[in-house]
């Protein structure tokens, strides 16, 4: 029997989301939370339920470098894809590199159309929240 991930990956994309957005939405790698008491986890959030988009980004830091990442998202497929992309991209990055990621780059990487620009901003905001905490409390 095929797994849920396989079923989801194989599903057609009748709504014409970008190829990458669709793949990340369907598979959502690194979705979820770290187990409680995982050391070195910094959590940043952005968005509001009223705006139909909330992104929660959890990065595990060891010696100033991201060693693992998780994300959770409530929102449209594009905002979920943004969370998945950032969580994957962040691995191995240090604070300065994390701080340099912009919504513009997210839009280019994921081919996010104009009417979804707010999803890229959501990603940038969540990452900035993490970076601000990392600067306060270096791990």
């Amino acid at each position, binding site marked *: 029997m095929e797994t*849920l991930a396989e079923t989801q990956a194989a599903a057609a*994309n009748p*709504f014409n989301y970008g190829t990458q957005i669709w793949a990340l939405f369907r598979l959502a790698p690194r979705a*979820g939370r770290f187990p409680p008491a995982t050391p070195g986890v910094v959590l940043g959030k952005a968005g509001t339920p009223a705006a139909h988009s909330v992104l929660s980004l959890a990065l595990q830091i060891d010696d100033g470098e991201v060693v693992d990442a998780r994300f*959770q998202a409530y929102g449209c497929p594009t905002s979920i894809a943004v969370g998945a992309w950032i969580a994957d991209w962040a691995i191995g990055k240090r604070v300065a590199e994390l701080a340099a990621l912009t919504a513009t780059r997210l839009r280019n990487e994921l081919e996010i159309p104009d009417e979804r620009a707010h999803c890229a901003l959501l990603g940038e905001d969540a990452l900035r929240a993490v970076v601000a905490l990392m600067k306060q409390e270096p791990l």
Partner: protein
Amino acid sequence: MIYLDYAATTPLDERVFEAMLPFLKPDGLHANPASSHGPGFRARAAVERARGEVAALIGAEASEIVWTSGATESNNLALKGALEFRGMPAAGRAVHIVTARTEHKCVLDTCRHLETLGVRVTYLKPDRNGVVTPEQVLAAITPDTALVSLMWVNNEIGAVQDIARLAPQLRERGILLHVDAAQAAGKVKIDLRSVPVDLMSLSGHKLYGPKGVGALFVRRKPRARLAPQMHGGGHEQGMRSGTLATHQVVGMGAAFAIAAADFEADVAHISGLRDALWQRLRDLPGVHRNGPDGSAEQPLAPHVLNLSFEGVEGESLRASLADVAVSSGSACSSATAEPSYVLRALGHDDELANASLRFSFGRRTRLDEVEQVAVKVRQQLQWLRELSPLWKP
């Protein structure tokens, strides 16, 4: 792909397709039904037979059926035509319409247009199940009320209005009653011999007929009079000019004849599927049924199940069910589009209205498809909730 969107449109019934074919072939019955020669008479006979078939399903006379391009045109013709005939607002003459907030967009938009011409419109707020009571309608009536327009069955939630109880009370008061029955024909019993509706809109493609054809029932006794909105050759007793699309008309007639013959079986089949899906989802936490529950106190059309899902965003919910064709209360392509105005009119909050799906069932839907959809909905709901930072089980 599993198709559960029969309230949006139905596939053509195979028997309807066969009935239409002779009228589409180049060497077939192509003549203008208004022509006075042999082929024209044959085309006209087919049109008149179809008129009788449409009339029979609703307990009307054939001469009370006016062909249109669909229910949108029928609704426009009924509202604008009736008011224009009775006299539009002018100095010293006010005109008032009563309708409901949950009507189809084509009734609401027509009412808004009439408002720009000076007509006053009352948009009644239904109860939480989408029902507008006859008492509510009567309470909204003023000495200037010319017409009441209410749909028999709501397209999004399947709520059934008590037209049989409302109609005689409006007749007593000399107020015209227009009913949009696009979703009702073939789904609920309609007998206009005993229910004094004046005008009623019908659609071909909601009932396994072709798209692009509809009808307006215009009562003859007492005569409901309309000013035409399409001027021309005076077809359709002067109410709707334009050469009739014989093949479409024949298709709608065949579809309505089948709907009349198969009424009990159709209703049993689709209401069984609707209940089967609900039985397979009702135990999930945070799943709400929108509209009436189908009990004796809350009548429900047989073909619609509308559900809201807590803890998930509507667009992702719909996208996660990419291989199921259902209607969604969520925005389609724009970040600013509003959730369903029908669910909002029922008092549902925006978030729940956004995360809603309308499943609608038809003649070709199978139980195993409904079972598959139930599994998919359960899987995807769980997946999206696990993904959500907001969901608290």
